[in-house]
């Protein structure tokens, strides 16, 4: 039997805290994954919106340039709209790439941490339970019989 000198109440409190921590951190990891997906979906929706807007602006510019008036129409406002919309779409796409890159880099440490929560932490909890059981057993033995 392992000889343990400790406060039984504090050890039990720490064991309970470890179990709570494991569940809480699982939730943290899950919410982290959700945040990534929410942002990806949001950026995809924005990119789609600006793509549709760009197509519309381009169609308006084309229509202006193909105008059937005898004098050349001033299409500069339509051209500016195409340019602005295109810049915004590219901006959103760059952020999509950045988010994908950062999420991929985070994937390795996140996966390793989940392993810690699923494998290492339960092992620590079991060892602590064994220590607590050993301590309780030692305290049940009357003085002089150890």
């Amino acid at each position, binding site marked *: 039997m392992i000889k*343990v000198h400790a*406060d039984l109440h504090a050890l039990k409190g720490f064991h309970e805290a470890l179990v709570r921590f494991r569940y809480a951190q699982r939730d943290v990891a899950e919410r982290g994954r959700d945040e990534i997906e929410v942002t990806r979906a949001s950026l995809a929706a924005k990119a789609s919106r600006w793509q549709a807007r760009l197509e519309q602006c381009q169609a308006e510019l084309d229509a202006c340039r193909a105008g059937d008036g005898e004098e050349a129409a001033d299409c500069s406002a339509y051209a500016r709209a195409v340019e602005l919309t295109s810049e915004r779409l590219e901006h959103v796409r760059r952020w999509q790439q950045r988010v994908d890159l950062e999420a991929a880099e985070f994937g390795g440490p996140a996966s390793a941490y989940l392993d810690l929560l699923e494998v290492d932490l339960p092992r*620590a909890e079991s060892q602590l339970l064994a220590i607590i059981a050993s301590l309780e057993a030692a305290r049940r033995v009357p003085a002089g019989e150890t």
Partner: protein
Amino acid sequence: MTTRPDRDGDEQLSLLGTAWEAAAQHWQDEVARQFDADHWTPLAQRSRAYLGALGTLLDVLETAERETEF
């Protein structure tokens, strides 16, 4: 209003640290030292590293949302 997961994680780690300190205060034998080296220190270090990385990523996600609002 919901808090960010990394901040909740930090708070949970802080609570666990307090529970460990309470246990370690009266538990200072060889078994305690072994448990500290094998379990507690790696857990605390890796948790801090993970939560730091998560915090950095969440900052990027928040910036991405903000920067693409036109």
